[in-house]
């Protein structure tokens, strides 16, 4: 068995002294693991950082074997965002999210969205907006997609302002006004892609996806959303308030 594919590194786990088990998201082969000989060495360690793109060749005698990866770095982003607080938490959180996907199951749209997000991660507002959209996409890929096309109560397709926490369907402003305390706010950037979100809308977006991710994706697996997401959201909201670019070249405080 042998194939080559584009991949984004999700993480590594040490295997012995010199080798690592590499976990990647590939374009055509989904989330995939494999042994990298010499992966713990100085030559490959910079390449095998989460968020980097690489060309991987997987070889195994049988399809069900763990197999070996030969890795060639394509776009080494990790060095660029090590000092960028929101970016490093984002990559850690998104890699955790992608690990919820079943192994060896192709998710080309997820790959494309993840790659685009990583390429734009130095722009905090856009990265945050794409992260919320990515979380929605992940919910859909896991089988718990939200229906934001029409109001669950009236069928109206305009002025959608809330999401029902029970059904995961949109609710129009008029129909949901009486239950607004029980409904989740639906930020308009999830309906109109061209709109650039405010800090409040981003917070609403993260609250919306966080609620459903926790309920459908993490809790049933006995997992928690994790600190990385909370720190990412907090960093983004702080940058929105200060208008900072997020990139650091000076001491961390």
């Amino acid at each position, binding site marked *: 068995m042998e194939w080559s594919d584009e991949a984004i590194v999700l993480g590594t786990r040490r295997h012995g*002294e010199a080798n690592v088990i590499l976990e990647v998201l590939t374009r055509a082969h989904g989330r995939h693991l494999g042994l990298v000989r010499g992966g713990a060495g100085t030559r490959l360690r910079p390449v095998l950082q989460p968020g980097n793109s690489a060309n991987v060749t997987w070889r195994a005698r049988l399809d069900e074997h763990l197999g070996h990866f030969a890795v060639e770095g394509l776009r080494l982003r990790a060095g660029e965002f090590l000092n960028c607080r929101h970016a490093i938490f984002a990559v850690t959180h998104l890699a955790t999210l992608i690990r919820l996907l079943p192994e060896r199951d192709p998710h080309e749209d997820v790959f494309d969205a993840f790659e685009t997000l990583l390429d734009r991660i130095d722009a905090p507002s856009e990265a945050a907006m794409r992260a919320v959209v990515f979380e929605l996409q992940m919910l859909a890929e896991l089988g718990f997609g939200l229906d934001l096309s029409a109001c669950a109560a009236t069928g109206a397709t305009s002025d959608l302002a809330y999401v029902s926490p029970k059904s995961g369907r949109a609710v129009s402003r008029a129909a949901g006004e009486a239950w607004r305390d029980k409904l989740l706010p639906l930020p308009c950037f999830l309906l109109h892609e061209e709109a650039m979100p405010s800090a409040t809308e981003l917070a609403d977006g993260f609250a919306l996806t966080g609620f459903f991710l926790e309920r459908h994706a993490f809790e049933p697996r006995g997992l928690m959303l994790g600190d990385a997401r909370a720190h990412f959201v907090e960093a983004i909201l702080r940058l929105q308030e200060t208008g900072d670019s997020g990139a650091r070249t000076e001491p961390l405080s």
Partner: protein
Amino acid sequence: MASAVAGPEIERLIQLLARLPGLGPRSARRAALHLIKKREQLMVPLASALEAASEKITVCRVCGNIDSQNPCTVCTDPRRDPSVIVVVADVADLWALERANAVSARYHVLGGTLSPLDGVGPEDLTIEQLVNRVHSGDVKELILALSATVDGQTTAHYITDLVASSGVKVTRLAHGVPVGGELDYLDEGTLAAAIKQRLPL
């Protein structure tokens, strides 16, 4: 299955030696044979040194370093600046910094870095003890000497967030061209970091 060529004591010695880092079964056999040949000069002193170490070595209750005294030699050294704490992931990193003789400060050993893949969370590290030390009032600077990996820097940013309210200055090690390093052989990530953090001459 190959039959054993030595008695159970020797086989057990080989098995235990083979568990050491850098040693496989073949090199463990060589080491065992060497120890047996040099029984008086090497094996007996080594056995007594191992026994003494296993009895006396403890983890420092202040910084997490390993030493035969508690608090450790580093924490009780009056010549070290108590207002600066160097945060490292492992004792091996502490030893590396001490070899470099670059800083005369106190240390804090985290016991690893945050790693979602390995299931290492904040509660598995000594982050809470570090935050308590920082809030004790004597500390003015925290140097985060963590590896230039995504896990290492996630840990660094996490700690920075936790101690932000204390007003303590938080710094980290520079990322860039190593001494003796040639640009041609460096990876793109290191070069990008080095360019971003260039210094005026």
